[in-house]
């Protein structure tokens, strides 16, 4: 004769399973220690001038222009940036030495920082400079408050010579790599 109690046993086994199931110790507070700091890169600006334009300016400053640049100032970046590097590459195939400067300005037009470059006439090797911001580098506040960039080019040579290169130009390339603390 089969008793009800014995028939119910499998049912109790399952119920018991939930009651006595084991769980290794978990620490969900660990999630607060999650650190997400990606490194993001993007170009900033590209400047190119042919030698004819430089000559046409007749010596001295051949270009001076400021323009808005609010990438660093965007809250997503300015509130999260922990360090960064701006890379400049300058290439000169003109026949004259050139001085270039790149200034970071705030909303009021105040110059926060300036990077100066002196580039010899062609042939001149590619000039590359990396400027660090954050720990061990310049203040991150320079970037956080930058809303304008001023680019200045000055001809340090004559205003008539022409390089033997096919298309003589001065080129300034720039890019930024930032570590952003997302969490």
């Amino acid at each position, binding site marked *: 004769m089969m008793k009800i109690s014995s028939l119910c046993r499998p049912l109790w086994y399952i119920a018991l*399973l*939930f009651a006595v199931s*084991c*769980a290794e110790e978990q620490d969900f507070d660990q999630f607060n220690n999650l650190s997400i700091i990606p490194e993001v890169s993007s170009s900033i600006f590209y400047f*190119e001038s042919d030698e004819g*334009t430089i000559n046409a300016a007749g010596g001295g400053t051949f270009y001076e222009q400021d323009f808005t640049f609010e990438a660093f100032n965007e809250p997503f970046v300015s509130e999260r940036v922990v360090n960064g590097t701006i890379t400049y590459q300058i290439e000169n195939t003109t026949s004259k030495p050139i001085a270039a400067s790149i200034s970071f300005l705030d909303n009021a037009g105040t110059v926060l920082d300036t990077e100066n470059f002196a580039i010899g006439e062609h042939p001149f090797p590619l000039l590359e400079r990396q400027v660090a911001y954050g720990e061990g580098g310049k203040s991150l506040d320079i970037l956080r408050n930058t809303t304008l960039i001023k*680019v200045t080019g000055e001809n340090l040579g004559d205003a008539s010579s022409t390089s033997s290169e096919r298309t003589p130009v001065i080129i300034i390339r720039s890019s930024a790599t930032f570590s952003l603390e997302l969490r």
Partner: protein
Amino acid sequence: MRWTNTFLWFIALWTAGVTAQNKQLLYDFYEVPQSLLLNPGVITPYQWHAGVPLLSGLSVQAGSSGIAVNDIFANDGIDFTTKFRERVVNGLSPNDVIGGSGQIEVFSGGFRSSKRPTDYYSFGMYGEGFIAQYWPSDLAQLAFEGNANNIGRRFQFNHLTTGGEAVNVFHFGINRQINNRLTAGLRFKVYSSVFEFTSKGNDGYFVTTQGENNILRNTVVADVTMRTSGVESLLELLGDDTLAQSVELPRWLLGRSLLGGNLGVGLDFGFTKRLGSNSYFTISVLDIGFIYHNNDVKNYTLNGAGTNEGIEIILPEDLGNLSVDIWQDLVDDFEERIPLDTNADAFFSLRPTQLNASYRYHFGEYSKKSNCDCDIAPSGRNINIDYKNAVGAQLFMIHRPRGPQAALTAFYQKRLGNVLALKGTYTMDKYSFANLGLGVSMQAGPVNFYLMADNLLGYQNLPASNYASLQFGLNILSWNPN
């Protein structure tokens, strides 16, 4: 706010647990009337049945492939960020999925036709839901690592696949014993969608390469869509502090559940074929249907292509005509090329069609003497279709955004008199290769109670388990007379 939380918990529980939706313990376990929902052509040894409202069928499943809670939250002293990077960001693939599914039967019943005793009619209403998030591998790695050290790598947008829904289903089924060897069934369904969101079939990428002019070039090519219905009104409701949410949320839920949401129709069919004196083959196809979403629809699209090398100043072309607002022009141009738009275009969503099939073999002589002589034994049970032992195999397949998911099950069933039936299963699927399950159906007089649990080995250490499910229900039923 309390009601908002309660409601969110309700939604979470309703959609709790996964995508698998495999109910291998219940399939063809015809001691339980809810097996009719998995195969309208299952053997029906009942005269009638009535589910206890809200308690006749409740099931939740939760699972994750590729990772378990214990993998990242174990108190093992390893730096959490390191674990997260190695086991989640770099450890999961785009085919890994985290999610859950749930079903609650609101009411159900069935009866045998008096004019045509070979026919058994069943009906009811249940709510079900699921949420499935495929791991967006590339996007997660982009967010975690950034693009600086991934020059040339395309971060694919087709890794973005997600979906979820809550739907109320009204159904009516006909089950007919065509002859001694064949029982077939059909079930008609009307779907009332409460809410749905889905994003699949996306395409495109983000890549950073060496620039043509400048140092770097960022390129975005996007063809990404997220379709939603019912979500916008829900979010508005939840975000409106001026409303009495204790009144409005249930009203909203009931309204959309009871045919006030987006509607659809569907069909299930299946049969049981007796192959020999002791072997049976069954097959069922569920949820061949669709829902047409035309109310409370909001779709999001990100479509276009654009490249960026920063601001460009090229002389002499730009002498004197460079806009001071060149940065904003650059941003505007990029947004114009890859606009994030919304629309309210109606859309169809296909139901997640499921296939079940099984082969079972009965052995061991069934004897009336083995009947329990206890005083709660159900009376009048027809023993002709009964078994003492059964073994077999089952196949389950479901259509999912990234193609079909399958599970293979081997099972053993045993009847202990008229009071108790047991089913043990071993299942292999993408969540686990060691999934042991146990189902119990108990009959006490006219009361039928069943309880089924899956992945029993996982209960040794629940957080280390990739998958868990539980089903139970309570019915009143009358068996066919001898």
